[in-house]
């Protein structure tokens, strides 16, 4: 979900754009300390030496987030002698497209979502990963098959190849709540959608408001609702239907999809279910929306959002003690669909086959690289060799577990659809639906837009 957060919103626009800095720094965790897989780092250092070489990496992460990545690159620099210049930009998606046409490409691009990487791969801007990394995700990631599939695109010559490795993931099928309030009111964690609906109704009957929903995100307004619909698709339709939906083999206005939209509406549009009502939900900023849970008395009891949301909680709230999450449950009625998990992730792709570029991607494949990011928080890894003890909190560990034990994992559908749909028509359609349009006409409009794409 990185991309949607980084897309321009009123709040983030005024924040200064990320700056480049290449100053040398100390290593964040001294080598040899803690439960890190230092052996992997030593082995990597022994095989790679790029003394005096310089490489550029660009991505969408800025500020503190970017610093976490710089802390990681310091280990690569330390092990190989290479200098890594990272620059992050809120407008990464535009910059990389322009650089692809006008020159000035970085050696490695960190895409917050695979959709754009796929486009650029077909234009020949990206190059396939080196042979040493071809089967890397298959061998090392949980659900490696799906990850590998998500990084395999046709190149400029039409030939399918792996164009990067996934680094950093988010889990989306989560409902956040404040355990203290649940305890006080005597609510149990719902195990099925039916129970979740009953609980929502019970909260309304007892004079409370069950949900905080906020779709506001500046120009990206509407994206949180697409996650709702995707999660509902996974819980009401088969994985095959989900995949066909994402590729438009199943039309957007098919009854299956319309039903999923209406399932979201069961929560968002029912009287009294949402703090402020659906009209307010349509414009409340997604970053401010969860705050209602921490009011006293609570403005709402539950908030459905991806694993990154704790960074937007009020400062004094600690994830794991003050706030917890439960898995957005499946329908009892659709038991055969199992426990699907919706997620997203960033992909690191090379733009050339320099040795240092390959070495850098190999470094991102080492368990130690994942551990250093995990130890800094806000990072989930499907890497099977990464030490789960490194996670800084039980919340993170539990999230990591959801990721590695899901019966089925599917990628955020809107991130995979063509840009006009996934990052535009779907968003605005969801805003229209939330503010009163009916599901069928919204779905018809999105499908019409999809058919317009030549």
């Amino acid at each position, binding site marked *: 979900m990185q991309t949607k957060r980084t897309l321009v919103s*009123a709040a983030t*626009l005024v924040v200064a754009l990320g700056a480049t800095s290449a100053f040398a720094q100390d290593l964040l965790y001294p080598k040899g300390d803690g439960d890190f897989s230092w052996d992997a780092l030593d082995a990597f250092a022994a095989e790679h030496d790029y003394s005096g070489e310089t490489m550029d990496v660009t991505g969408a992460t800025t500020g503190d987030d970017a610093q976490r990545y710089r802390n990681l690159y310091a280990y690569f620099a330390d092990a190989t002698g290479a200098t890594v210049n990272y620059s992050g930009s809120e407008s990464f998606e535009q910059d990389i497209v322009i650089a692809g046409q006008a020159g000035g490409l970085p050696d490695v691009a960190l895409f917050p979502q695979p959709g754009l990487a796929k486009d650029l791969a077909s234009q020949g801007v990206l190059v396939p990963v080196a042979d040493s990394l071809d089967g890397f995700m298959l061998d090392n990631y949980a659900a490696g098959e799906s990850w590998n599939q998500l990084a395999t695109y046709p190149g400029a010559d039409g030939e399918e190849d792996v164009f990067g490795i996934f680094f950093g993931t988010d889990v989306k099928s989560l409902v956040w709540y404040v355990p203290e309030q649940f305890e006080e009111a005597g609510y149990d964690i719902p195990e099925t959608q039916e129970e979740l609906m009953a609980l929502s109704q019970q909260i309304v009957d007892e004079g409370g408001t069950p949900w905080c929903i906020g779709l506001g995100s500046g*120009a990206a307004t509407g994206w949180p609702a697409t996650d709702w619909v995707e999660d509902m698709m996974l819980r009401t339709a088969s994985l095959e239907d989900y995949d066909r939906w994402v590729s438009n083999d199943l039309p957007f206005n098919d009854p299956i999809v319309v039903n999923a939209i209406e399932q979201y509406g069961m929560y968002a549009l029912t009287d009294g279910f949402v703090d402020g009502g659906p009209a307010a939900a349509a414009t409340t900023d997604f970053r401010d929306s969860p705050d209602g849970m921490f009011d006293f008395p609570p403005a709402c009891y539950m908030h459905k959002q991806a694993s990154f949301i704790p960074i937007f909680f009020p400062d004094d709230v600690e994830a794991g003690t003050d706030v917890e999450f439960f898995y957005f449950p499946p329908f009892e009625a659709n038991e055969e669909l199992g426990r699907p998990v919706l997620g997203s992730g960033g992909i690191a792709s090379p733009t050339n086959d320099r040795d240092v570029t390959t070495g850098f991607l190999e470094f991102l494949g080492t368990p130690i690289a994942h551990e250093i990011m995990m130890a800094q928080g806000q990072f989930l890894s499907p890497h099977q060799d990464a030490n789960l003890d490194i996670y800084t909190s039980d919340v993170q560990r539990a999230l990591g577990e959801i990721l590695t034990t899901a019966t089925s994992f599917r990628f955020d559908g809107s991130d995979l659809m063509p840009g006009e749909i996934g990052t535009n028509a779907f968003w605005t359609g969801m*805003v229209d639906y939330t503010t009163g349009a009916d599901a069928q006409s919204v779905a018809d409009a999105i499908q019409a837009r999809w058919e317009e794409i030549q």
Partner: protein
Amino acid sequence: MNPIFQGLITIAIGVGGIFLYFIASNAFLDKVLFPAKGPNTSRNINRANTIRPWLFMAPTIIALSLYLVYPVIGSFYRSLFNRSGADFIGFTNYTTMFASSEFRTAFFNNVLWALVVPSVSTFLGLLIAQLTDKLRWGNIAKSLIFMPMAISFVGASLIWKFVYAIDPELGVINALRVNLFGAAPLDVLQVAFWNNIFLMVILIWVQTGFAMVILSAALRGIPEETIEAAIIDGANPFQVFFKIQVPQVTNTIIVVFTTTTILVLKVFDIVYAMTGGNFNTQILPSYMMQFMFRDDGRATAVAIVIMLIVTPVMVQNIRQARAEMR
């Protein structure tokens, strides 16, 4: 190297280079190509004078063709191709665009913007310029009104986001609604049709200062005698304003009006930051942003339409400016 030095060096090279170019090319023309001596002196002088303007205009012509003419032609050419830029599809991008209801909404809204914003901000600017002219604290009032000019459009949008906030503890409008009238708070940006006006208010707020400063200068440029004569002849303040002052600044009013119109047709930040084009507030520039970097064919088609709309206003603006110079 420090970016400041880089900038200074660039400026020095740029300014110095163009200076050198003028001197050197002029010298070459006069001394080498057509020297004002020898058997053909008068013919040489005439020839040199014919060529000289072109020589001096050359840097501008080259820069303009490279950065203005070429992009326009290139954009038009690109708009005839499909999403990937590989297949020629003629005017299909334009026909799909005109058929789309969102384009029609954006077009209609843009017309509304182009009518309302320049008129209101010019009118308010003129009014304020006149009212503050003789006041002791007039300059303070003017500075305050001019200040929003220094804020970026996104910054201004952010400020107004608070004014329009649903939460009555944040938003002024909802605070009034709730506390004075006891009504339920509502999201003003979702009120059909009027939300467009609410967005225009932001640009008017920013732009009125500009109109005020220009018009204030123009009003002060009016010869005192005409006003004195009118007062002696018994004209009341309204007559002085409408019959003596306004006719003498008409040209300036038109320039301010057209300049603001051109600005309106370019501004996308406000809609982009406030509503993202939702709730039927789409305008052409933000509509174009939806396609940029995804389907450049359609994005350039919108850009060409915007250019066609701006051109007549621009021509009018230049004509007016020229008329003023005479």
